[in-house]
C-alpha cells in the first residue's frame, strides 16, 4: 500500500515521456512475432535446400530409394526443430523480448507435437524404404538397420526417450502427472537429444561424405547447447551470486494465498516491471530441482522482491511453509504483461485468484506513469480478495472488489451489461486481464462486445508448464 501511494504523487508530470515510448514500443510485439516466425521458416527452408542440393534425382530411381531419402529429410527437419524448441525455452533475451515467455512456451509445446510426429515419420520411412531397397520384410530390415548402421542403438534409446517425454507432455498425461515428475522426465530429453545426434552424423548420407555439412550441423547443436548453458545456467547463477536472495518473511494474504518477501542486494538491477514474473527456485529440500514461475506482486525495490502465491499445487502449498533465511535463485524477469502494452492512458485491470499479484504490480507501474486506472477484483468470497488493503484508496486508482459466486449473486459481474455499468468508458480503455482461463475468456468476450478493440486487450497465460 505504502509504496503505491507514496510514489504516485510525484510522478504525474512524467506523463509525456511514457506516451512517446509507448507509441514506439507498441509495434514491437507483432514485429517480434513475425521475426521469430521468419527465423523458424527460414531455418526449415535452409534444411530443405540442403537436402535438395545433396540429393540427386537418381537416388529416387527406385521407390525404396525415394522413401528412404524422404525419411532422411523428415529426420533433418525434426533435428532442426528440436534445436529451435530448445532455443525457444532457452531464456534467450531476444526471443523473450520479441514474443514473451508464455507464448514461447506455447510454441515450444506445439513444436513438440510436430517433432514427435516427424521422428515417427522418419523412422517409418527409413524402415519401409530400406525394406524395399533390400527386398526384406519390415522386421528383419529393422534389425539389420540397427545392427549394420553406426550409432543406431543409441539412436533407438534416444528415440524411446523422445517418445516418453512427448507422451508425458500430452494433455491427458499432464492432468495426471505432478509438475515435479513431469519436469524430471522432461529433463531426460537432453540425454535423448545427445543419443540421437550420433547417428545423424555417422549414418546420415548427407553428412558422411561432407565435412562441411557435418561441421555446420554440429555447430547448430553446439550453439544451441551454448545458449542454454549461458542463459539458463551461467547468467542466473551469476545474478544469484550478486543478489544473494533469501526468504525474508512469508505473509498470509487470506484464503490460501501467501506473499513471500525476498530480500537481497541490488534487487532493482533485475529491472523488473509490474506485471512481469520470475522463475523462483528455493534452495531447500524438495525444491532444488524445480523452478516455478511466480508473478511479482509489486515493483521490486532495491532490497525487496515480493511474489504472491495461491496454494494451487504441491509446490505452492509448501512454499507457504518456507522458512525465513532460505536461499532463493531467481531467473528473469519475463513476460510482456506490462505497462508498455497500453495504447491509451486509461486502463482497466481485471484480476481473479492469483492474478491479483501481477495486476497489483502492474497497477503500481501504471499509476506511476500517470494513467487513469480501474482495478476490478473478482473472488468467490470477500476473504479471497488478497492484497485488497494495498489497492483500496490509492491515488489515481479506482478499486472495485467483486466478491461472490455467480450462483449466489444471480448474475455474472463480468458480463457485458454489468461491466458497462461499473466502467462506462470501457471502450476507451486498455483492458488487462489476469486470472484463471475461464475468467480471462469471459472478460475478453465482454470487452469485445462492449467495443474494446482487439489490440487493446492484453492477457497472459498464468500456467507455463
Amino acid at each position, binding site marked *: 500500500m505504502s509504496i503505491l501511494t507514496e510514489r504516485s504523487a510525484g510522478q504525474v508530470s512524467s506523463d509525456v515521456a511514457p506516451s512517446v515510448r509507448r507509441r514506439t514500443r507498441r509495434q514491437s510485439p507483432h514485429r517480434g512475432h513475425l521475426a521469430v516466425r521468419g527465423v523458424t521458416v527460414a531455418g*526449415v527452408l535452409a534444411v*530443405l535446400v540442403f*537436402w*535438395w542440393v*545433396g*540429393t*540427386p*534425382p*537418381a*537416388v*529416387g*530411381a*527406385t*521407390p*525404396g*530409394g*525415394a522413401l*528412404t*531419402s*524422404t525419411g532422411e*529429410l*523428415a529426420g533433418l*527437419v525434426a533435428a532442426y526443430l528440436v534445436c529451435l524448441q530448445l532455443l525457444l525455452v532457452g531464456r534467450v533475451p531476444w526471443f523473450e523480448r520479441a514474443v514473451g515467455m508464455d507464448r514461447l512456451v*506455447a510454441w515450444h*509445446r*506445439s*513444436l*513438440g*507435437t*510436430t517433432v514427435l*510426429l*516427424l521422428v515417427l*515419420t522418419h523412422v517409418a520411412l527409413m524402415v519401409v524404404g*530400406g525394406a524395399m*531397397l*533390400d527386398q526384406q520384410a519390415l522386421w528383419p530390415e529393422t534389425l539389420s538397420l540397427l545392427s*549394420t*548402421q*553406426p550409432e543406431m542403438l543409441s539412436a533407438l534409446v534416444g528415440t524411446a526417450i523422445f517418445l516418453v517425454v512427448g507422451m508425458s507432455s500430452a494433455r491427458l498425461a499432464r492432468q495426471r502427472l505432478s509438475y515435479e515428475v513431469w519436469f524430471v522426465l522432461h529433463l531426460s530429453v537432453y540425454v535423448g537429444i545427445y543419443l540421437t545426434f550420433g547417428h545423424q552424423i*555417422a*549414418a546420415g*548420407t*548427407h553428412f*558422411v*561424405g*561432407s565435412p562441411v555439412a557435418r561441421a555446420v550441423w554440429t555447430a547448430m547443436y553446439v550453439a544451441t547447447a551454448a545458449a542454454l548453458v549461458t542463459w539458463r545456467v551461467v547468467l542466473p547463477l551469476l545474478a544469484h551470486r550478486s543478489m544473494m536472495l533469501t526468504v525474508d518473511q512469508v505473509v498470509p494474504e487470506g484464503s490460501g494465498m501467501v506473499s513471500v518477501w525476498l530480500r537481497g542486494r541490488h534487487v532493482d538491477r533485475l529491472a523488473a516491471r509490474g506485471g512481469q514474473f520470475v522463475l523462483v527456485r528455493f534452495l531447500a529440500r524438495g525444491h532444488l530441482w524445480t523452478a516455478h514461475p511466480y508473478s511479482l506482486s509489486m515493483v521490486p525495490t532495491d532490497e525487496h522482491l515480493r511474489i504472491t502465491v495461491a496454494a494451487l499445487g504441491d509446490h505452492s502449498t509448501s512454499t507457504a511453509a518456507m522458512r525465513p533465511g532460505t536461499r532463493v535463485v531467481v531467473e528473469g524477469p519475463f513476460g510482456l504483461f506490462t505497462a508498455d502494452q497500453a495504447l491509451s492512458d486509461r486502463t482497466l485491470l481485471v484480476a481473479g485468484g492469483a492474478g491479483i499479484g501481477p495486476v497489483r504490480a502492474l497497477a503500481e507501474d501504471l499509476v506511476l506513469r500517470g494513467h487513469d486506472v480501474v482495478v476490478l477484483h473478482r473472488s468467490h468470497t470477500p476473504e479471497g480478495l488478497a492484497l485488497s488493503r494495498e489497492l483500496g484508496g490509492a491515488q489515481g486508482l479506482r478499486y472495485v472488489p467483486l466478491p461472490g459466486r455467480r450462483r449466489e449473486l444471480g448474475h455474472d459481474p463480468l458480463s457485458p451489461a454489468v461491466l458497462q455499468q461499473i466502467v462506462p468508458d470501457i471502450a476507451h480503455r486498455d483492458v488487462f486481464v489476469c486470472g484463471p*482461463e475461464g475468467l480471462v475468456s469471459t472478460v475478453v468476450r465482454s470487452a469485445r462486445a462492449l467495443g474494446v478493440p482487439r489490440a487493446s486487450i492484453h492477457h497472459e497465460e498464468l500456467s507455463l508448464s
Partner: protein
Amino acid sequence: MTAARWRGTLIYTGTLATIGTLAVTRFGPVLGADQGAPVTAATVTSTSQGATTTQGGSTTGSSSGTTSGSASAAPSTTATPSPSDTTTPAAGSTTSSTVTVAGGVSQTRYGPVQVSVTFSGTTIVDVQTLQSPSAERESQQIAQRSTPVLAQEVLAAQSARIDTVSGATYTSEGYRQSVQSAIDQVG
C-alpha cells in the same frame, strides 16, 4: 485455445506436405518415367563397360566381357561361367602365374559394387575397384574414401573376411561379396 490445441499437428501436416511435395518434385520425373526399368538398363551397360575394361586390362578373351555383362542381373550364378573363361586362359598363359579375376557384381542400395582380384599363386596381391556406387555425389565420396581401405584390408586378411568401413556399410558389404566371388572362382 482450440487453435493452439492442434497447432503442433497442423504444423506437422504442413511440414509433411512440404516434404512430400519436395520429394515428388525431386523424384517424380525419375520415378514416374518407367519404374526402375531404366535403372537395370543403366546397370547392365555400366557393368559390361566395367567388365570389358578389366578384361582388356588383363588381356583375355573379349567375348567373356559380354557374358559377365549380360549376366549381371543374377550375379551369383553367372559369375561362374565368366571367370572360368577368364581363369583358364590366364592360367594357360602362366608366364608369371599371376591371375586377375573379376568378381561378381553385387547390388547395394546405393549402386553396384564390383572388384577385380589379382592372385599370384594363391596369394592376393592386388584388388582393383571396377565399379562402385556413383549415383550420388555422397556415394562417390564414400566409395573414394572406403575402397582403398577395403583393398588394404583384403590384402592384409588374404580373404574376404574384412571389417566394415564406418559410414560405408553397404559399399563394404558389396565389396566383401564381390571379393568372395572372385576368390571362389579361383578355387
